[in-house]
């Protein structure tokens, strides 16, 4: 029997919501990791019972958690105490949860980036924003972190190694943080080409690798950002999210700080598709599972007022790949609603009809089992939602 599992990261723990394929009646488990910020959880397409979670705290730093039974039980994927004992020094040598910036791959020091005031500032690891498991190997996953860098594990999260060619791009010292910090928040893998990886960084922009993460180049041509001196600069754009349909990997959709954008050539060139949206500011963007030209955004009033226009929570859908947008309101609050929907807090399932889900900073998780035509709250009173992912289990 088909089941659906929704993985919700919040500011005070993780929650797992489950339902059958009808997606009408839901069970809620959690909080897992109560009291910790769970920036992101994501399951492996290669082994749906393998789930990775980013557990983080301002006090105690970064923890990576892993489940091998679909979220029933969790473990930090470190070595056992016996394995950790280094015979030579007597010191532990485990690397679980260890995210240390690397300079060896680029061959030159990667010491600073641009700070808010324009001065140079040392790179400092803070947390993992996004975990992207490989579509083919459950032991391989990528971690997008703050300060912006990309790490990879090949042993199920036990150890992580930076793909330092990204920070090693000559533009690295010019990258600067957005309001939420300098985070690498989006990792998109091309299932048809294992060598190709897309990432997005606030506020540096989008980057692409065509050699499995060894070297990178900015892909920001066509973006225009009013908050930087050169509005069409190579880097400095506050990209909020990039989405791709797996069947059409050269077509990318982007929600930028302002503007909804599209590329038809794997990011070489971008053009605006905002058109009749009430505002083109927002955070998440996603693509329908079976209709590559059907996309979803949640417009937010402005960069200084992070809530829906007119207090109406509306998802906007375009069935034409952009520009022609329709509001989806059935079942969503249409008055006095002042929540936000963060960049990792929207997802789609692969059932037919396609399910769409999003979580809010007010703690609601909404689901639609009909491609967005109608919505219902799955749960209303969670802590502020940071991320939502879904798995369809057959």
């Amino acid at each position, binding site marked *: 029997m088909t089941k659906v599992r929704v993985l919700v990261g919040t500011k005070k723990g993780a929650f797992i919501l489950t339902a059958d394929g009808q997606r009408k009646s839901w069970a809620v488990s959690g909080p897992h990791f109560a*009291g910790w910020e769970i920036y992101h959880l994501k399951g492996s397409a290669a082994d749906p019972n393998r789930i990775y979670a980013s557990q983080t705290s301002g006090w*105690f730093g970064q923890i990576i958690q892993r489940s091998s039974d679909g979220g029933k039980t969790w473990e*930090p994927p470190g070595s*056992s105490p016996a394995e950790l004992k280094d015979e030579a020094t007597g010191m532990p040598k485990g690397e679980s949860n260890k995210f240390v910036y690397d300079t060896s791959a680029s061959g030159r020091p990667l010491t600073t980036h641009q700070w808010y005031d324009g001065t140079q500032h040392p790179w400092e690891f803070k947390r993992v924003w996004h975990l992207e498991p490989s579509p083919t190997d459950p032991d391989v996953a990528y971690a997008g972190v703050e300060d912006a860098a990309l790490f990879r594990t090949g042993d199920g999260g036990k150890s992580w190694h930076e793909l330092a060619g990204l920070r090693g791009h000559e533009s690295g010292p010019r990258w600067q943080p957005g309001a939420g910090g300098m985070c690498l928040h989006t990792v998109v893998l091309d299932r048809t080409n294992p060598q190709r990886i897309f990432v997005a960084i606030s506020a540096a922009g989008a980057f692409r690798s065509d050699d499995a993460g060894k070297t990178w180049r900015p892909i920001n041509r066509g973006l225009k950002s009013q908050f930087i001196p050169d509005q069409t600069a190579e880097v400095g754009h506050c990209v909020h999210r990039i989405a791709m349909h797996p069947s059409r990997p050269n077509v990318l959709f982007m929600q930028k700080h302002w503007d909804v954008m599209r590329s038809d050539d794997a990011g070489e060139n971008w053009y605006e598709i905002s058109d009749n949206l009430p505002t083109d500011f927002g955070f998440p963007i996603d693509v329908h599972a079976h209709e590559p030209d059907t996309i979803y955004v949640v417009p937010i009033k402005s960069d200084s007022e992070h809530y829906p226009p007119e207090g109406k929570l509306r998802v906007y859908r375009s069935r034409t790949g952009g520009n022609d947008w329709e509001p989806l309101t059935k079942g969503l609050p249409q008055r006095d609603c002042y929540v936000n929907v963060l960049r990792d807090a929207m997802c789609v399932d692969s059932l037919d009809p396609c399910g769409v889900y999003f979580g809010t900073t007010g703690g609601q998780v909404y689901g639609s089992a009909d491609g967005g035509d109608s919505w219902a709250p799955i749960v209303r009173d969670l802590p502020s939602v940071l991320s939502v992912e879904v798995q369809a289990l057959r």
Partner: protein
Amino acid sequence: MIRVVLPQHLKTLARVDGEVTLAVDGPVTQRSILDALETRYPMLRGTVRDHATQRRRPLVRFFACEEDVTHDSPDEPLPPAIATGAEPFLIIGAIAGG
């Protein structure tokens, strides 16, 4: 045996209730206690001391015998009552945030 009291979140992470007891070889210092703690509970690596620098995380503090020893040298011997286990070594999460 050395007695160590962890903050609640680290107890949960290490899956322990109450105090932790540790055997420490040689001088009993902040560093030797934390080395022993991380060896026995590897999931705590990086949570008290930064992985890269091995320095105390900014919002973590250490108390011993009703004294704040946070800013003492990590290699300074701790009071005899800690070394004998008469008093616990306290690892505290600073009161901050929401």
